[in-house]
């Protein structure tokens, strides 16, 4: 027997849970203003998130998946991406989407049950949230294929959860990305749970990073609660992809501090002790500790920024609530570029029925 191939998975972390550097920080992070910016974005994401949950609980919005505790993943990757790159998210990447010009009110509109929430006004290329788990990975691979065919220095970034890595579509995109050396970065938000199924039951892999080996390219782990590490590894992977170096798979290790969605109750299946332990690792306090220790953040600034976030979010909520009802006929008018003849009658019918239906309609 001879050994014909060997592989290894690296792990990157710069700040430990107490906010102490575990190794020299990367270049960008020596500039504390950049770090403060990352910090502010994480807080903004959390404030938005809490508000979205309240909107759902008070009947002003539909089901919502909180990204509590996973802010560093989204903010780090969103920050590393360039405008011309394309993001194919799952549904816990609001922190990234804000940086890509997607409006808070758009995201609220989406979860409020309004398709217009995906008609991003300031971002024409990013994909909308993706509900069928893992399917967006192939869209990202297709986008990356287009970049490659047109020789554009752009990168597709796809984000999915730990559960999504069990899907065939995820793997098929990983395999293709390797085979075609596509400019794509896979970010796996390993928040340890897929609804009630723990990471350990999802796969026997020691790391999710090694899923990349099945595509013949590098996979790595990163502390997904360390926004510095997160931004660092994503930026490096983007650069590599942009310059023809091909795909990278990044497993970001973090934790879902909330229920799966507002429709879920994690108490049914999750140990309280595990949750408490996870709180000690969360990304915002960690970076705050570091910035405070460096003298770049204070309680006063915290209070001010919290207030600013609340205000910004509140304004977005007002915008969201003020969106006029969609048109009845939208369900026909955006189905095809041009309404096919067989839908003309139905389109008229929906208008007539709405008048007729009145209170008889399901509510």
């Amino acid at each position, binding site marked *: 027997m001879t050994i014909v191939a060997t592989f290894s998975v690296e792990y990157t972390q710069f700040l430990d849970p107490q906010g102490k550097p575990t190794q020299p920080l990367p270049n960008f992070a020596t500039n504390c203003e950049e770090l403060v910016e990352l910090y502010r974005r994480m807080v903004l994401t959390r404030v938005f998130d809490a508000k979205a949950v309240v909107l759902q609980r008070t009947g002003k919005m539909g089901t919502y998946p909180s990204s509590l505790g996973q802010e560093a993943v989204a903010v780090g990757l969103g920050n590393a991406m360039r405008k011309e790159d394309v993001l194919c998210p799952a549904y816990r990447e609001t922190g990234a989407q804000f940086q890509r010009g997607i409006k808070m009110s758009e995201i609220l509109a989406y*979860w409020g049950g309004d398709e217009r929430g995906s008609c991003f006004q300031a971002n024409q290329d990013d994909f909308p949230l993706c509900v*069928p788990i893992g399917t967006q990975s192939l869209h990202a691979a297709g986008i990356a294929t287009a970049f490659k065919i047109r020789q554009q220095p752009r990168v597709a970034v796809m984000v999915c959860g730990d559960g999504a890595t069990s899907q065939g579509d995820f793997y098929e995109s990983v395999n293709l990305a390797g085979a075609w050396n596509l400019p794509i970065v896979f970010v796996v938000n390993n928040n340890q749970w897929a*609804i*009630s199924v723990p990471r350990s039951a999802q796969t026997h892999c020691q790391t999710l990073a090694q899923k990349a080996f099945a595509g013949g390219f590098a996979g790595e782990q990163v502390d997904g609660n360390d926004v510095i590490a997160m931004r660092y590894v994503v930026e490096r992977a983007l650069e590599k992809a942009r310059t023809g170096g091909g795909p990278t798979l990044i497993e970001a290790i973090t934790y879902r501090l909330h229920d799966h969605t507002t429709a879920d109750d994690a108490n049914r299946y999750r140990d309280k002790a595990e949750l408490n332990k996870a709180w000690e690792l969360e990304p915002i306090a960690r970076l705050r500790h570091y910035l405070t220790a460096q003298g770049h953040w204070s309680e006063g600034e915290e209070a001010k920024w919290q207030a600013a976030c609340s205000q910004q979010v509140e304004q977005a909520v007002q915008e969201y609530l003020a969106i006029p009802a969609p048109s009845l006929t939208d*369900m026909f008018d955006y189905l095809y570029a041009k309404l096919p003849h067989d839908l003309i009658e139905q389109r008229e*019918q929906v208008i007539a029925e709405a008048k007729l239906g009145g209170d008889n309609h399901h509510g």
Partner: protein
Amino acid sequence: MAEITLIEAVTQALAYEMQADKDVIVLGEDVGVNGGVFRATAGLLEKFGPNRVLDTPLAESMIAGIAIGMAAQGLKPVAEIQFMGFTYPALDQIINHASRMRNRTRGRLTCPMVVRTPYGAGIHAPEHHSESTEAIYAHTPGLRVVIPSSPARAYGLLLAAIRDPDPVIFLEPSRMYRLVKQAVPDNGEALPLDQCFILKEGRDITLVSWGAMLHETMQAANTLEAQGVSAEVIDVATIKPLDIETILASVIKTGRCVVIHEAVKTCGVGAEIAAQISEKALLNLQAPVLRVTGYDTIVPYLKMEKYYLPSEARILNAVHQTLEFA
């Protein structure tokens, strides 16, 4: 006897049959500790242990595919797919294998499996949680397609589905999961898998429906009663094989028929029923068979989904059109 909901009836049937037959295995995403996202499998893990209730990784083609292998070994897998919109990755295994294994091997290997999934719109859920594509399954030879519309029928039909020696697609109208309660004796009695149920007898018109739309259909029938129109209401219940005899007998009696379903109109199961009625009872028809269905669009998100779903008013409108046809 306590009254139970449709979803509780599903749980009751699962528990009954798992107790009665150790080969019955429940599998799917979150069906274990969590008891299913709708709680259909609540309590089963505690009762039957992790060898009988399998929480799977997140992959629907896998769920259907391993059920085929398990069934070939004589187990009776009952797989849950979390929502009908997530059954599509499993279609290849269902169409290309589950439905064909008996025929392919001339009876050597068989596929006694059930795929359960919540289906239909109107529960204010996100995109992909409102599908009603039962026609795809009804178009697939080798399958049975069953849709209960009451707790009692959910119990009796699910027992029958699990006991059936061939693959059954069992579609549970999620809008009905907790809409009504009914006393359902836990006696292990199955209902026939190839018969319609007449929910209300009538003379003037036949209303044919299934799943959650029976709610609006029954409302319409009651409104019509008050207007002096006697409507017969049929719950198709088993979409495949279709009990066209019961429907024909009713239409021959009433001379008029409206089919109501929430799936899109084009190539929906309503087309098959209308085509068969027109073929086999043309001279008995006093008016064309009308279809009141979802529009040929994608179910709108929750803000507008109510305009997609057929309302009682739309049903009444079609009924009156039919009654006034000359």
